[in-house]
């Protein structure tokens, strides 16, 4: 069904890079040459055969930290995005399909959440709640779901007035069938496009939080936290802070290359078959 030869170059690049990041994340303990918190040398050693990317501000192997960092960064971003999409899309579709007071209630609540700047809201909530991975995922997921809600509601409102949805309602179908079988398949394209962007926003948001000290707590670290740990080195011409920053950028681009390709395959609204 999937013709490998017809995947465009950009998508290939995205797939390979995303795949690499995922492999690093999943098999981190076996790939990393050293332990996550293990001090193996001097502070900010340059790149060498022993330490491919040099060492960080405490003398830990930067490559190993990058690999463990990939694990935490991607795990939190994936779970937060998954949460925001399930929550936002389901609520958005339901609001569009049910309408009336339910729609008004949820929409106004979402407006309320969105009226507070995300970062400030996140900072306030996280400084009150205990800082662990679960709270991070929940806070990021819920804050992000407001954006997904607005998009999915807007898309679903248009689909909800189509004759085939009316036909399903006349048949007596329940809300579940209408949302998941009639609306969802037709709303997938804009959602997939949004998914790529939202995942990257989650990575960046997590990095921002970690940079401010409210994200992943030491000795663990995500890439954003590693930028923070090594930022003082920049003054001395040491590139340790730039490597995690570059990794964030590369991940962002490669995920979006994949998302664009998936989008191209599914945008043909006229038919159920992708156009390759």
């Amino acid at each position, binding site marked *: 069904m999937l013709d490998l030869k017809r995947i465009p170059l950009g998508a290939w690049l995205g797939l390979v890079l995303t795949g690499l990041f995922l492999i690093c994340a999943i098999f981190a303990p076996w790939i990393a040459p050293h332990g996550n918190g293990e001090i193996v040398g001097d502070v900010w050693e340059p790149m060498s055969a022993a330490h491919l990317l040099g060492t960080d501000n405490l003398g830990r192997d930067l490559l190993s930290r990058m690999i463990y960092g990939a694990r935490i960064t991607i795990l939190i971003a994936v779970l937060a995005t998954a949460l925001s999409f399930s929550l936002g899309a389901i609520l958005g579709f339901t609001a569009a399909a049910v309408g009336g007071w339910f729609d008004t209630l949820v929409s106004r609540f979402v407006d309320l959440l969105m009226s507070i700047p995300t970062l400030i809201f996140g900072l306030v909530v996280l400084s009150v709640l205990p800082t662990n991975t679960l709270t991070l995922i929940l806070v990021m997921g819920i804050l992000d779901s407001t954006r997904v809600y607005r998009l999915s509601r807007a898309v679903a409102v248009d689909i909800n007035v*189509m*004759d*085939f949805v*009316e*036909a399903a*309602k*006349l*048949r*007596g*179908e329940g809300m579940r069938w209408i949302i998941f*079988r*009639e609306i969802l*398949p*037709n709303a997938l394209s804009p959602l997939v496009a949004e998914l790529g962007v939202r995942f990257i926003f989650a990575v960046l948001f997590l990095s921002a939080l970690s940079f401010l000290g409210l994200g992943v707590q030491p000795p663990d670290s995500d890439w954003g936290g590693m930028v923070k740990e090594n930022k003082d080195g920049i003054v001395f011409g040491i590139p340790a802070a730039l490597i995690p920053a570059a990794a964030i950028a590369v991940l962002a681009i490669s995920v979006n290359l994949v998302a664009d390709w998936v989008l191209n395959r599914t945008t043909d*609204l*006229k*038919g*159920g*078959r992708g*156009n*390759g």
Partner: protein
Amino acid sequence: MAKTTTQTAKPETLLDIRNLRIEATVYPPGEAPKAVTLVHDVSLTLKRGKVLGLIGESGAGKSTIGLSSMAYGRGGVRITGGEIVLNGRDILKVGAGGIRKLRGREVCYVAQSAAAAFNPAHKLMDQVVEASLLHGVATRAEAEKRAKALFKKLSLPNPDTIGERYPHQVSGGQLQRVMTAMALCSEPDLIVFDEPTTALDVTTQIDVLAAIKDAIRDTHVAALYITHDLAVVAQVSDEIMVLRHGRLVEWGGTRQIIKEPRQEYTNALVSVHEIEHHEQKAEGAPFLSVKNVTAAYGGGAVKVLKNVSVDILPGQTLAVVGESGSGKSTLARAITGLLPPEQGTVTFDGRPLANRLADRPKEDLRQLQMIYQMADVAMNPRQTVGTIIGRPLEFYFGMRGAERDRRVTQLLDEIEMGKGFADRYPAELSGGQKQRVCIARALAAKPKLIICDEVTSALDPLVANGILKLLLNLQQQENVAYLFITHDLATVKSIADSIAVMYRGEVVRYGSKSKVLTPPFDAYTDLLLSSVPEMEIGWLEKAIAGRRMESAGN
């Protein structure tokens, strides 16, 4: 005027298309792009001041040929062969500048949907005179004067001030006439009319048709009149050209084509509306009665149904006829529960049906099925035909797996489509096939009543004819009743057992088919009946002369 003297000096043949070949590139799913030929070596000539009707089904290439007279190919279509000689020169060789001089000056275009063809942000007058000003044919004052004279000639209301309005402020029929005025304003030699009355009600169509015909006669402009309705084209054209699959089928005088067609296909087009259907007697008790139903939109603000009562008998067809806005679709919505009536009741099998859709038990929903006008939006584009037809089986009868698939195949057979269609998506079907799948979906529920909302109006006449025959066959097999909503009286004559004529939310005439279609008529039924184009030369003038009331669209 100097213009008339130069005109007489021009050759008598205005347009001469020789061996026209038009191609386009298509991108079929899963295959390499390929070139298809839309028009195969078609030739035609048109004399000054004459009207040539181009007729055929959708995909016959009639619009493509019409537009080629302006050297225009719509949506990536390429003119790859032949010559188009207009006013003595081949317009395929005049270059971009030459084509700009020609469009809107020598050839003008009247589109099917005037509502979509006007720019909603500009006043009508600005758009009507635009071409004349651009080509320097007239000064603004002259052009406006001419436009007003044309508005008057096309019998538009308030010809002096209607140009000050925006497109949304006039009705569809009026807009179509304004568009004709726009085409005539720059005094072109040729106008291409692309289905100008297809989107209009019958009663409005006749006005627009008469206006176009008068305007053509008075301005001596030549015209290509594109339509799929032979009866309409017979009223306005001198010659008719029948096209099919991009090839010429038959070309002759109007009288010859409609009276003595030489080709089998033309004959099929001419005799398309003749379906044998014997009216069933209204015996026995109705199983569905609509009693004094009043319904309104916007919380009672706009009353669209006023005190409507109709009965439907088992296995029979009730046709509801009227113009757009007469409330016929609203009646369907009230019966299905989509729009709960404010007053009155709908009884089904002797018990009242719940007003709201949500309050009805599954069994009641199963008994009432609906088929929509636009089959392509009535099916989920992401579901296969098998899923679309199979879902009611699953939902109402709990059929699964092989049992369900067997029944789907059986239903596909009933609608005269093969088993192979079960894996197709709606986008991979033709218009007629889509409507058949919708019929199968309704049938799958084994209902007592199917509401057919304008099911044939989006289809070509021959395809529509096939659908009507299928519906009649299925009625005999399954003993299902139809509530048939339509504005097309020819359809009604061939399918109905009883008829309800609706006008502005009220039933003005109701009874068995023979009773409703027998004189004496009330004024509105008379208007409706006399507005249905008949395949007869001179029908238009007779119909206009014999009318007793103005159509509602005016």
